[in-house]
């Protein structure tokens, strides 16, 4: 990750655009902080029967020095949140294809640091909240009388402690759900909007999400505190030499927890906490996904780096590549003058460099996806399970050498940060939980009811179809390969799938083949995830398809020099080959099952339906070209099978 970050730093786009966008989003979240704090103060001091007293108290509190200090602390929290957003955001969600991968990401050291920081920030925000609410929540120690001697000593204020621990809990669950629900995945909207209308449109959703999340967290925390609350309480009171006031009702009891005012303040503070964080995330998403207009060509050679053809070929800075593809899709639909620049010839020489570079880059993206799909289909057995790793590698090399699309893609291996086929089967860096899909999804809102975790802590089911076949020669032969596959996943940067993390001692004592088989079993648990992972970066392909098809369609009337005609056959065959691969992929089991729609969450689940969007975009792209060119396509030099397929499109039979 550090290496990636340094790579990002080197790019002009990160330096000049992304950093400033992040700074602007953080600045806006800091500016909005006083407003949200004021609303929080109003709500926390709310009293129905003394409205005048309520208003006057709130106004005096808003100008008090303690509130100003709290604001400064909150600004620090927002800053750190913003920095984390900038550091962790991703345009391609990493989808763990197995439960091991998910566990690995949750236990990854980087994730642990993240959780720790969020716990601390949660405690800080809750401290500010408890100071603001005042009353019985304000300090950790309160004077109290001892019942025997009557002397005044400092006692532990359990209410304050309760809120602080709730903050830590909410911070951890935010961090945890960030992994599980892909909080840092930034998706692009299907339509373009200015930033302010978009923010206004999203605000109600953010409020709703933070309220719901806070209520869930409050419920879970209350349950947790009821069972384990005495541990931190006794620990704090012994280390800080605070007495426990026995005259008060302890909070880790049923009557102590059934305090309406306490629960109200807990949920209000939790809402405030989540809202602050979610707002930062929202503003960051809005700023980062704002369209950026790259020049198509430049008269100065030093600016050539920043022109669309060069930027599209860039592979290290994913955000720049995505924004460039988005810009390509937009210019192909909306801007006549920029389209003419794409179709223009270079001044000395008369070569269509712009069009060549752009079309080559789009086609290499698409053919890379085609190869990925073919490799996956070869690797997947008919029952939907992934065959052994070595087999898939063999078939991948075979398919890539025998594929007929090599001639159109001169740089098929250039797109390094986009996923290679192998990484689909191995557990991946920062892998995210994707078990939110159909069969496993009852309650994704509570972190502790996550089915993935439940499966993990549970023993291996004896009814598993693999259980009895441990000694079969098939598995024995396969075992060592799998073992090496898991070491390969380590070298890929994923957390080690070491036996220590396996919560099944008998399995660890078995010989390696059993363990490997068990691991293999764990790895294969999520069939739909592999399909999702294949299409995880398909937003880029969708834009490439839109851009290509609209440019080709526009070339019918706008291309004066016929530069598009030379590439039309390869574009058409590239699209048809991709269509065949996509069609075959959707015939696999689980590929066409729809994910369950998540009700309300800040985590973006757009990536789960990207494969459907890609299929629709692909068909629309082919239709766009066939309806524009009509019968002229008969004159285009393509193979007979492809022509047959295109004839289907000409007759609208697809």
């Amino acid at each position, binding site marked *: 990750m550090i290496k990636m970050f340094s790579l990002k730093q080197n790019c002009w786009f990160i330096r000049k655009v992304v950093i400033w966008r992040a700074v602007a989003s953080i600045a806006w979240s800091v500016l909005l902080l006083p407003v949200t704090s004021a609303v929080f103060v109003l709500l926390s001091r709310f009293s129905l029967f003394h409205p005048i007293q309520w208003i006057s108290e709130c106004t005096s509190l808003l100008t008090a020095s303690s509130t100003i200090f709290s604001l400064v602390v909150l600004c620090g929290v927002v800053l750190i949140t913003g920095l984390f957003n900038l550091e962790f955001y991703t345009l391609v969600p990493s989808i763990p294809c197995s439960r091991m991968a998910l566990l690995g990401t949750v236990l990854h050291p980087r994730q642990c640091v993240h959780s720790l920081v969020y716990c601390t920030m949660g405690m800080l925000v809750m401290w500010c909240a408890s100071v603001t609410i005042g009353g019985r929540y304000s300090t950790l120690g309160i004077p109290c009388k001892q019942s025997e001697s009557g002397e005044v000593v400092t006692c532990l204020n359990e209410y304050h402690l309760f809120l602080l621990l709730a903050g830590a809990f909410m911070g951890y669950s935010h961090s945890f759900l960030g992994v599980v629900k892909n909080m840092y995945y930034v998706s692009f909207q*299907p*339509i373009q909007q200015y930033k302010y*209308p978009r923010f206004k449109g999203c605000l109600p959703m953010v409020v709703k999400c933070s309220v719901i999340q806070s209520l869930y967290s409050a419920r879970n925390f209350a349950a947790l505190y009821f069972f384990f609350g005495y541990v931190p309480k006794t620990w704090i009171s012994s280390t800080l030499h605070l007495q426990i006031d026995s005259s008060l009702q302890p909070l880790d009891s049923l009557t102590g927890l059934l305090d309406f005012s306490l629960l109200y303040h807990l949920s209000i503070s939790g809402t405030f906490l989540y809202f602050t964080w979610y707002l930062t995330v929202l503003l960051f998403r809005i700023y980062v996904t704002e369209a950026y207009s790259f020049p198509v060509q430049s008269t100065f050679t030093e600016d050539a780096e920043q022109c669309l053809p060069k930027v599209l070929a860039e592979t290290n800075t994913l955000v720049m590549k995505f924004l460039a593809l988005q810009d390509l899709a937009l210019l192909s*639909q*909306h801007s006549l003058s920029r389209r003419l620049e794409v179709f223009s010839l270079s001044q000395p020489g008369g070569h269509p460099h712009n069009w060549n570079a752009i079309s080559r880059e789009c086609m290499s993206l698409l053919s890379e996806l085609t190869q990925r799909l073919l490799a996956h289909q070869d690797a997947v057995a008919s029952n939907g399970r992934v065959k052994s790793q070595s087999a898939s590698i063999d078939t991948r090399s075979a398919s890539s050498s025998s594929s007929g699309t090599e001639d159109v893609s001169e740089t098929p291996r250039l797109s390094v940060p986009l996923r290679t086929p192998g990484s689909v089967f191995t557990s991946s860096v920062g892998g995210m939980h994707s078990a939110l899909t159909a069969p496993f999804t009852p309650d994704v809102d509570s972190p502790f009811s996550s089915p993935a975790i439940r499966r993990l802590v549970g023993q291996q089911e004896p009814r598993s179809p693999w259980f009895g076949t441990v000694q079969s020669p098939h598995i024995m032969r396969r075992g060592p390969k799998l073992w090496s596959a898991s070491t390969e996943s380590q070298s890929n940067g994923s957390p080690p799938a070491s036996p220590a993390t396996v919560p099944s001692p008998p399995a660890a004592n078995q010989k390696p083949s059993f363990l490997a088989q068990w691991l293999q079993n764990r790895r294969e648990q999520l069939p739909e995830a592999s399909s999702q992972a294949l299409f995880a970066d398909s937003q880029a392909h969708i834009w490439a398809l839109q851009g290509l098809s609209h440019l080709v369609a526009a070339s019918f009337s706008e291309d004066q020099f016929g530069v598009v005609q030379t590439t039309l056959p390869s574009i058409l065959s590239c699209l048809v080959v991709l269509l065949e691969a996509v069609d075959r992929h959707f015939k696999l089991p689980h590929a066409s099952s729809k994910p369950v729609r998540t009700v309300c969450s800040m985590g973006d689940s757009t990536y789960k339906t990207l494969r*459907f969007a890609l299929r629709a975009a692909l068909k629309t792209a082919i239709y766009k070209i066939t309806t*524009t060119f009509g*019968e*002229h396509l008969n004159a285009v030099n393509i193979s007979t099978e492809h022509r047959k397929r295109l004839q289907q499109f000409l007759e609208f*039979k697809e």
Partner: protein
Amino acid sequence: MCSLGVFPAPVTAAQTLFERNNELLSALHPGEHSQACDLPSPQFTRDTLKGHSRPESSSRSVFLDQRDTLWMRSAGAWRDAGLYGLLDEITNSAEEVPRFLAVGSACVLALLRWASSFHGSLFPHLTLSSDEMVAEFSQMLDWSDSALRSFAWHPHTDKFAVALLDDSIKIYKSNSSPTPTLKHRCQRSVCALQWKPLCGSALAVACQSCLLIWHVDPASLSTRPSSGCAQVLSHPGHSPITSIAWSPTGSLLVSASPVDTSMMVWDVAAESAVPLQRVGGGGVTYLSWSPDGSRLLAATPSALFRVWETRMWTCERWPCLKGSCQSACWSPDGGCLLLSMQGERVIYALTFSDLTGGPKAASVVADLSETTFPGPDGDLTVGGEVCSLSWDPRGERLAVLLKGDSQADNHPSVIAVFKTRSSPVFELLPCGFVMGEAGAEPRFMQFHPHFQHGALLTVCWSDGRISHVPFYFSSAGLLGGDSPQQALASNTTNPSSNKLYTEQIS
């Protein structure tokens, strides 16, 4: 400005067959039937269609009344009718609940009713039931009484979909015999249909509670596609849906509901929606996307409509003088918008151009006030409010469906057809009236999207028949953006290899 007075007198005795040599010919002329095209023209009568099935919630009257516990009834009320139902249930079972709860819920209920009646006085359409609302804002004249509920041509092939009174949808193709029937549990009170452009199979259906996207495989021979072929798109508070519009590139779908102030922009394949909210107007009733895809008209139930530009999705507000915008249509190049208002008997035109930065005011281009034509069986009055407008894809004929007076004997609804000319100035010229068989009134009309020999108007009649009226003409000047290409494509190639439109020629 054109008025109905200069129109040739309508022929009441017989059905209009087609236009040729600048003349609308009717069935009075013998031997002309062979000219009619071979498109299917099915007929549906109210009797053959099963009556409107009961809503699900009322089916409980069939069963014996059984007293559930209060909890069960409250949960059921909450599920069926939301907060209102819950409060109503608690108030009604006052003897079982504590007194303070019953009184409290009665108070809250009264407060809610008062607030909603206040809201309803601002926006009167909110007091309508959902069926009444659909009938009010549908483009189909007399929607609730009609055997046909909606109609849509496929934009690229000879295929159309018809929504019927019994909530089923039938798809007719020009050549093949199987006519698929689409039925779905959620498919109730269909108000609008539209095929996805640049796609062979997807049909969007605006229903009472949701939006359905059917994927009807054109190659399939099945007559009853399963409901698994349909995607259900819904958003809380966004029903009933009265209008839908696909973007001409087929990538986005916009849906509108009169009770929801935001319209939804759907990415259908990803099943995600972006709400675009503007509070003024109290809802969105009618949507129309310009053929070049750059603008979108959104009419509200109040005297206000908006024109969105679809690049950054900002809108212009257009307050109207009298009523709300009832119907609208775009010229094929997207530069001109024709509108009709409720309560006014004129057609307005707005001309958009990128150079001048949009129009400042709408101009009146046609006057449609009542005109009486003498006829053999007494006088015939035509004219009135415009129910819907339709412009043929070449931009040469404009069809206007004029509401009649159901009380009066000789004042039926008719379709008036104008010739349109865009240069040197935009102008409407009279063409004639399209009449049906005796006693049949037009309910809905739509132009065929790519008729080769001119224009083809498809009309749904009140007797449940669908007929096609071709207008044969050679276009003087092409307005459409795509049509030069189409013309080029068909001219330059050998007719024997011309597979794309063979079905029409034959």
